[in-house]
């Protein structure tokens, strides 16, 4: 029991299949929106649905939901640094 706890949470098959179905549905929505609608809407879909899909993979498939707060904080820090770099670079090029 002690060992099982240390080795992490057992994610039920049902949860994994549900997440997979949700990922497929989100992909279908993303493809539909970007082919059928105006560019502004497809960029909005790209910026919302894509991180949502990545989040589902991170939280359920990669077990991040069941990890310690420390590891979660590290992941958010790395993503934060990446977003910060992208933001700063955009600030730089847009005021040249």
């Amino acid at each position, binding site marked *: 029991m002690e060992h099982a706890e240390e080795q992490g949470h057992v994610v039920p098959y049902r949860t994994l299949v549900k997440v997979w179905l949700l990922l497929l549905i989100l992909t279908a929505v993303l493809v539909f929106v970007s082919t059928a609608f105006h560019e502004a809407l497809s960029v909005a879909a790209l910026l919302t649905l894509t991180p949502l899909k990545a989040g589902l993979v991170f939280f359920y498939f990669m*077990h991040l939901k069941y990890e310690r707060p420390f590891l979660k904080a590290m992941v958010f820090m790395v993503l934060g640094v990446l977003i910060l770099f992208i933001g700063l670079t955009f600030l730089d090029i847009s005021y040249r």
Partner: protein
Amino acid sequence: MSTAPAHAHPVHKDYQGAKFGMWLFLFTEILLFGGLFLLYSIYRSMYPIDFHNGGKHLNVIIGVANTVILLTSSLTVAVAITAIQKGNKKLTLACLGVTIVFALMFLANKYIEWSAEIRHGIYPNGPELLKMPNGEKIFYGLYYSMTGLHGLHVLAGIIALLITLDFVRRDKITGTDFNKLENVGLYWHLVDVIWIFLLPLLYLAA
């Protein structure tokens, strides 16, 4: 073969440390691809029309098919981990096998896609590419580097999955010691996440 009981010589396993080490490696991967995503977003903001036209020539069907393949292969890896935790070795082996088949299908699609583009003269210094405006040249440069680097990761993933499959078969990975499988799973999911971003950036750019 040792007959000593396991508790006589306990093998030190730092499970949390091993997993954390894998995550640290994934962070470097995120920043590696992040650099390419940064380049992509800047050049797209500089050449929006060229990127739009570049995306038009890509095969959306193959891009979406590969997305479905990778998402499903992520599911099979995640199921393999749950299966080993529940002590179901057969299901673990089957899931890992299916994952490898999906990964090979992904690369086969990539081969079909790249050969078609190369036939049309779209490759570095290719006749069609040289006729294109600068933004489109950059788009294809990024397309080849991003999908190429990602493809190399898929190839590395196949090798890692094959080794893991053999470990499970030889009971080196078991229901009480499955950290290797979990770490390979983490790597494979990250390869999937990167593709999740590549699909809208490249294939749905039009």
